[in-house]
């Protein structure tokens, strides 16, 4: 277990270094940073002086090492556009994205797993067929279209919910939350549905397929032959076995929820890091772009690590216990 953890941590570090290399390359290959920083009137000498001062004449490995060292401390320099430290800007906006992602993920997981189990258990019922058909819409419609549709229905036509923004927020320590005000919660509904709908349908279809698979296995048949109640079979035996593969996909999907928040945040003008990233691209604000890239990579790596640990919790076959390796 400990060796496994160490190995996974080392792998994670390698992944982060590779992403770091890509992020770092942005600085060197997407335009000239000096050109972005100084005005048009700056002389060649001034530019050269600045280049020397910023260490841009140093050899590539040295510059990369410096970048990594700074990134490890959360420092990504100054935003070209806002002229403020990137880490501060991101820290301000991260709560908005995380709250949105958390609510979407919860919505997708809770409804996705329940609907999937329902559709698997009542596979020939008309409600589950209906749910499966509707889920096709969720899988195939692009997120921005769903967002715009929802805005049109609930914000424009019915005028029940706000169409953009985050509503009123409350500062709790360093965290700016929208959970504590009514307008904050109302503003959260549409973007959360938009962001979670695709994952919901995906999880639901996956859970249904996996569960149908599990219900066909010998141990379920044997559990029936032992006379166990349907409840014990479906929820005690089948569901737990269904969750093993579902955990992987769901874990990765949670990563994508944070990453895909870009589109939802743009549609709803949600003041999170996704929107920040989109604006940064428009302005070629490379420090912000690099920091965002690293941040998303970090989320994925951490989530993967958690997924691997969850496997251990769920599946005893992975827990290699000393001294009890199969004995006859």
């Amino acid at each position, binding site marked *: 277990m400990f060796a496994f953890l160490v190995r996974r941590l080392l792998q994670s570090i390698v992944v982060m270094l590779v992403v770091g290399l890509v992020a770092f390359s942005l600085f060197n290959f997407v335009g000239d940073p000096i050109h972005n920083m100084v005005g048009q009137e700056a002389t060649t000498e001034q530019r050269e002086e600045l280049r020397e001062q910023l260490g841009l004449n140093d050899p590539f490995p040295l510059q990369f090492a410096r970048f990594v060292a700074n990134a490890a401390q959360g420092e990504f320099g100054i935003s070209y556009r806002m002229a403020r430290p990137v880490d501060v800007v991101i820290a301000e906006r991260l709560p908005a994205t995380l709250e949105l992602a958390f609510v979407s993920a919860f919505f997708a997981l809770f409804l996705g797993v329940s609907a999937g189990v329902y559709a698997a258990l009542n596979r020939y019922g008309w409600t589950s067929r209906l749910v499966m058909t509707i889920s096709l819409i969720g899988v195939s419609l692009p997120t921005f279209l769903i967002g715009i549709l929802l805005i049109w229905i609930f914000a424009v036509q019915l005028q029940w919910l706000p169409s953009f923004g985050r509503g009123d927020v409350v500062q709790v320590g360093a965290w700016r939350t929208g959970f504590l005000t009514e307008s904050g919660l109302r503003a959260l509904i549409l973007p959360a549905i938009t962001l979670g709908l695709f994952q919901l349908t995906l999880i639901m279809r996956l859970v249904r397929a996996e569960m149908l698979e599990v219900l066909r296995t010998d*141990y379920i048949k044997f559990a029936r032959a032992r006379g166990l109640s349907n409840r014990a079979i479906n929820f005690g035996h089948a569901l737990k076995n269904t969750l093993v593969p579902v955990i992987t996909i769901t874990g990765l999907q949670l990563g994508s929820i944070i990453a895909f928040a870009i589109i939802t945040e743009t549609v709803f003008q949600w003041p999170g890091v996704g929107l920040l990233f989109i604006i940064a691209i428009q302005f070629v604000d490379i420090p912000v772009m690099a920091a965002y890239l690293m941040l998303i990579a970090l989320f994925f790596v951490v989530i993967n690590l958690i997924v691997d640990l969850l496997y251990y919790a769920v599946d005893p076959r992975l827990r290699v216990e000393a001294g*009890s390796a*199969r*004995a006859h």
Partner: protein
Amino acid sequence: MSSAVKTPLLQVRNLRVEFPTRRGVLTAVDDLSFDIHEGEVLGVVGESGAGKSMTGTAVIGLLEPPGRIAGGEVLLRGRRIDNLPYEELRRIRGKEIGMIFQDPLTSLNPLYTVGRQLVETIRTHSDLSEGRAKARAVELLAEVGIPAPERRVNQYPHQFSGGMRQRVVIALALCANPRLVIADEPTTALDVSIQAQIISLLKRLCSEHGAAVMLITHDMGVIAETADRVAVMYAGRLAEIGPVKDVVKHARHPYTHGLMGSIPIVGQDLDRLTQIDGSMPRLSEIPPGCPFHPRCPRVFEPCDQERPDPIPVENSEVACWLYDDKRSGGGGHG
């Protein structure tokens, strides 16, 4: 037979199992009748696809839809069980009829300890407390010959070998003291060296618990050693049923005869084993009349026209026109 006057434990009457498919209805089991008496071991043999497993699954009411019992009845101690509501039938499963499946490696839920699976089954069929049920689980594991049961009870299925897992499966099938155990090819998936152990364990435990066994297998050797009576199935129908000695030594149905001739016997130096030409028909292509007639060496004129019903011959019943005196003029008994 001493049990002839008593109501048999299990009576299967004209059982018919059908599978509706896109290309028509397939009949997996057709007009099958047999009895199992208390404490008796009935072997059910036949090639794969003969409907042996389907019969076992139908008796315990676990046919996978769209498969269904389309006709006939199943009676347990004289009470009809094939038309019971799901919940009532569930109470019979495990409690009155236990079932053991082919593959012990996949019969146990990999995510729970064997103890948990035993306790769960025990508590489903009795009102023992958690602690008492756990103690009973340990007893059962000891009974099926698992060493150090106190420690093993807390282990997961993957920590057991195939033979040990089948022992756990047997413990699970027996834990509510069922009157009948349906063992569907219980040793097919195991090493040859372990098969004999498991079969003798199964036989010993069932006779200790007073349970009858319906032993489904294609291994005639196992049948000869274990069963009291044998039912031979062919293409979903009964070919012959009778006491094991009669069927093995004096097979009457030409199919049984061919089946026995195809078994190698150690020490007996045969130049070649007899074989039955052709293969069993697919369910969609069962010929009219006797399903065996295209392969039968002793086919004569009624065979491809009319279907023979089981005819009593001494202690057996044989579904073959050779034993119908009117048809064959008594010439079949030779």
